[in-house]
Every structure is written in structure tokens, then in C-alpha cells.
């Protein structure tokens, strides 16, 4: 489908295929499984109800299918670009240049006591 249709139209056609598979009830065709959704939700520290889980499964599957277009590119021997500028290793002297009042650091705390953030018990 190269050339005849613009990107947006090809995308629409491709994602319609995924959509119609859902209508047919062929959920196994989805890129992302519900188990994976749960695993990633756990890593992301998110709690999802069943409706959201299914929605995210569909969303992620569609988006990842679109991302797989990148496989059309030959990236053998290509260096990844993590940072677009040429400069590297920006250092400064290990000296205190800015002082903050404890009070201002706690200003937005949901719960504070004795100059500390109050948190639920972490260590059993």
C-alpha cells in the first residue's frame, strides 16, 4: 500500500483492520495481551479497572502496530540518538550554590510533621 494513499489514510486502513478484528471477537490478534497490560500497569504504579485495562490493551496494540513501521528502516550499523546536541558531560564544582529553607521544601507536602514528609510505613 505504498504510494497510493497518504500516511493518514494508510494508518486509518491499517487500524481499521485491528478494529474489525475486535468486532469479530478475535482478541488474540492484538499486539498486547491483557497479562502484559497488567504487568506494565504494575510497573507503572497504576491501578486499572477492567474497562480501562481493555481500553489500554486496544490503544497500545494500535499504537505499537503503527510503531512497527520503523522495521521498514534499515538501521544496521546506525548509532542511536539519545541526545541531539554535541555537548557531553556537563559538570560543575561540587559546591553548595543554592540554599533552600526547609519550610519551603515542605510547603506543598500533602502531610508533614516535625519538618518531615509523612508517609505510610515502608519497611515491615
Amino acid at each position, binding site marked *: 500500500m505504498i504510494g497510493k*494513499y*497518504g*500516511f*493518514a*489514510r494508510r*494508518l*486509518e486502513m491499517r*487500524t481499521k483492520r485491528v478494529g474489525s478484528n475486535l468486532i469479530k471477537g478475535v482478541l488474540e490478534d492484538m499486539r*498486547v495481551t491483557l497479562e*502484559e*497490560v497488567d*504487568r*506494565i*500497569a504494575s*510497573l*507503572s*504504579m*497504576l*491501578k*486499572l479497572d477492567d474497562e*480501562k485495562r481493555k*481500553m*489500554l490493551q486496544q*490503544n*497500545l496494540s*494500535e*499504537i*505499537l502496530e*503503527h*510503531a*512497527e*513501521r*520503523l*522495521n*521498514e*528502516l534499515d*538501521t544496521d550499523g*546506525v*548509532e*542511536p*540518538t*539519545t*541526545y*541531539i*546536541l554535541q*555537548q557531553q558531560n*556537563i559538570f*560543575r564544582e561540587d559546591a553548595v550554590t543554592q540554599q*533552600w529553607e526547609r519550610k*519551603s521544601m515542605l*510547603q*506543598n*507536602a*500533602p*502531610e508533614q510533621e516535625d519538618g518531615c*514528609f509523612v*508517609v*505510610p*510505613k*515502608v519497611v515491615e
Partner: protein
Amino acid sequence: MALNELTITEAVGLLESGEISAAELVDDCLIRVDAVEPIVNALVTVTYETAAEKAKAIDSRRAKGEKLGRLAGIPGIIKDGICTKGVLSTASSRMLYNYKPVYNATVVDKLEAEDFIMIGKANMDEFAMGSSTETSYFGKTKNPWDPARVPGGSSGGSAASVSADETLFALGSDTGGSIRQPAAFCGVVGMKPTYGTVSRYGLMAFASSLDQIGPVAKNVEDAALIFDVISGHDQKDSTSASMEYPAYGAGMKQDIKGMRVGVPKEYLKQDISGEVRQNLFDVMKRMEDMGAVVEETSLPTFDYALSAYYVIASAEVASNLARFDGIRYGYRTEDYENWKDMYKASRSEGFGDEAKRRIMLGNYVLSSGYYDAYYLKALKARTLIKNDFDQLFGKYDILLSPTTTAEAFKLGEKSRPIDMYVTDLFTVPVNIAGLTAMSIPSGLAESGLPLSVQVIAKAFDENTMLRAAYNLEQALQFDAKPDLG
């Protein structure tokens, strides 16, 4: 003319000559804000008292003959993802519904050093993720040209407020088009500076390798002035470009005879409306009339920029949003048994759907088993895309394209995430390749909504871009305004 309708350049002249006062100027803007906000909803916070006080102080200092900053008395609006000391800064998220930073972003300090007057904080898509300002926790912003349509996003409030003459300028942020696309939809000028030229200190991070703060203004000259003020190396941002910064806007009014303009044909092969296509051809002709050499060229990897962007930006935002846990600031759930519950509930209740979607996508592509296939692949694609652009800039001074595939869409129209993402198709490659670009209004569609073109220059070449944009703007004489009654 009501003073809120002035450009910065005009206002500075009238303030310096004493014909108007800062108090009057701020007052007219705030009157306009009160009149149109019920329709537009561009602002999360309006700083009535501090603005009036500051205006009074500036008028008084001017009367005493004190030296004032370049923006003395000029009202401006700051996107809500940019930290303003003591003033609510929410990134339009429930997660930060009550957050008042204890410091200013560097860009705010720089504007204040030039005596600008902040009149409010602009609404946005939550944590800058979106292209329509529909994901804001504080309600959708409407397009001043047609309230049934979106203003674009994520800097929708910034663009709408300038378009509606609530302010003389605004700051937005652009990661994949979030200044340029709303500027295009609202018929104003929006600029994404080269990555590294404007400090990100105090900008709530979305994608750390792509984000840049930039101006939204009524014309190119005003945008250039704001950019000149907010740019510069910043010790507090280790990604800030360490170099000699030129005076931005220098030479902007010189002609563009002989300027080499490339128009990548891949842009024209996309699903764009007939009007957008015709508008681009008109703009190309105007540039030729001014002596530029305009020709069609090719950017083979154009098609891949959007895919690479969604992988990279999501990965980066998943990491950046990990800090929101209800411990030190922001929203905390009331309902928990242990610390893990608290984290999960605070985050799940604090973040909207789009934020969750991107966090999930980001963690997925970074997770073991998928890292190479998606994230690493996208980073390599980024290199290829950057190389493609570098090649073009060996032959051309600037590249030209439409900013968007069509005029502003209707609220609720793009309900599928992918449909929304595609609205950034033309703007995203610029961020991926580390270039600079600006959007200027170039005509009106049949629907009455503005159309815009995008001028792209190579990294750190803002002055060439400004010169092209300024000349084009003068030739186009776009002076249409939305009718808000």
C-alpha cells in the same frame, strides 16, 4: 482601539512615549479576559492583583526616569506547565491541582528581569500530552475563531489567549508541535526554538530530549523579541546549549533574495485538504516573487518521524512522570492501606487517561524483551531522520510546509488516540531532528478558520528562519481576527 489589541512592538512605543500607561494596558487585557473567558476558557489562573500592582510600580518607576526592561509594562501569559513562584502551576492535571512552586522557571525570571507583567497561566493538555487541549483537568479551551472547535494543543490556552487578544504574548512549550499546531489553529505566530537554546529549568518535563519553551505572539517581530529575552545558556539546565548566542532578530527585516527554499514532496503526498495544498502553492509563489529560489525536494524518512516520536516521547514521559506519587507535592489519595496502595491510587486518581496511556506505552517499550525492538529502533530511526534533514540543509536555507494537514478540527472529533496523534504529522519531524521551526498564519479556509505554513531552519539558525518568516508575513498581510463579539 482597545489596548489589548496592540502588538508588543506597538505597545512598547506607546508606553515609552507616555501615551499609554502600563496600568491602562493591563486593565484592558483583564477586561478582555473577563469578557471572553466564559467562551474560550484559555486560562487556569488570572493574577489580577499582582498584575495591577506590578503595572502601577512600573508606571511609577518610569515617571521617575528609571531605566526599565525591554518588556516593561507588557502583559504576558505563561503556560501552566511552567513554574511560577507562589502562583498555582498545575500542568492542567489533577495531580498538581494545588501545587504552588517555590521557584520560578528560568524563562519567567528572564521575562521578569525585563519587567514584563504576568496576567495569568494558560490551560493546556495534561502534562503537555495532547493536540487539542481536550485532556485538561480544568475543562477544554475553545478556539476563538469557532468555539465548537479545538484551539489545538498542548499549548491551546497560550494560542487561544493571544488569538483572542487577552494578552500581548504567551509562552508555550513544544515537544512534537505543541506550540506550532495550536498557533496554526488559532491564526497566530508560534515558534519552537532549537533544542537547548531556551532553558527547561522549571518546565514540568514531558520528553526531556524534545521539550522546548517558545513564544506565541501576534507577529514575527514580537516572537523574535520574546525569544531573544528567554533564550540563553542556563547553568541550572544541563541540556542547555553552551555557546555564543547571537542577537535574535538581527537582520530579520532584510530581504530574502536568493534564499534557497526546499519543499519536501512527502508533505504534499499526505492526506491534506485541497485548501491547505493551494495555500502552500500560493505561499511558494509569494516567496519566489520576493526573489527566493523555491523548489520541491525530498525527505525520504519523513513518514517514520511520527512512529519514532511516539515511542521516544512516551518512554521519556513514563520516566518523567514517575516522580508523581503523592508524597512531596500534589494529589494524594485518601483511600489506602499501605505505601504501594497510596502510590497506585494517587497516580490512578491524579492522572487522566491520556497520561496513563503514554506512561503505559513508555514503560512497555522500555521493558525487557521490547527495549531493542521499539525504543532502540526508534532512537536509530531518529539518527536517520536527522541525517536526512542535515543533507537537505546542505542544499537549502529553509524548508517550507503546511503546519497542519487541515484547519482546526471539532471538539470530540478525534476520539481515537491515533487519529489525534496524526494531527502532529508535520510538526513532529522538527523536534525529532533537533531543528527550529515557526508557524505563521497564511490564509483562511472556506470554513473561516485560519491556515498556516511552517518555516523550518537548521539547528541554531533562528535568524534565517525569522528573516524568511518576517518577509513572508509582510507579503501575506494576514490581518483577520476571530469574532468573539
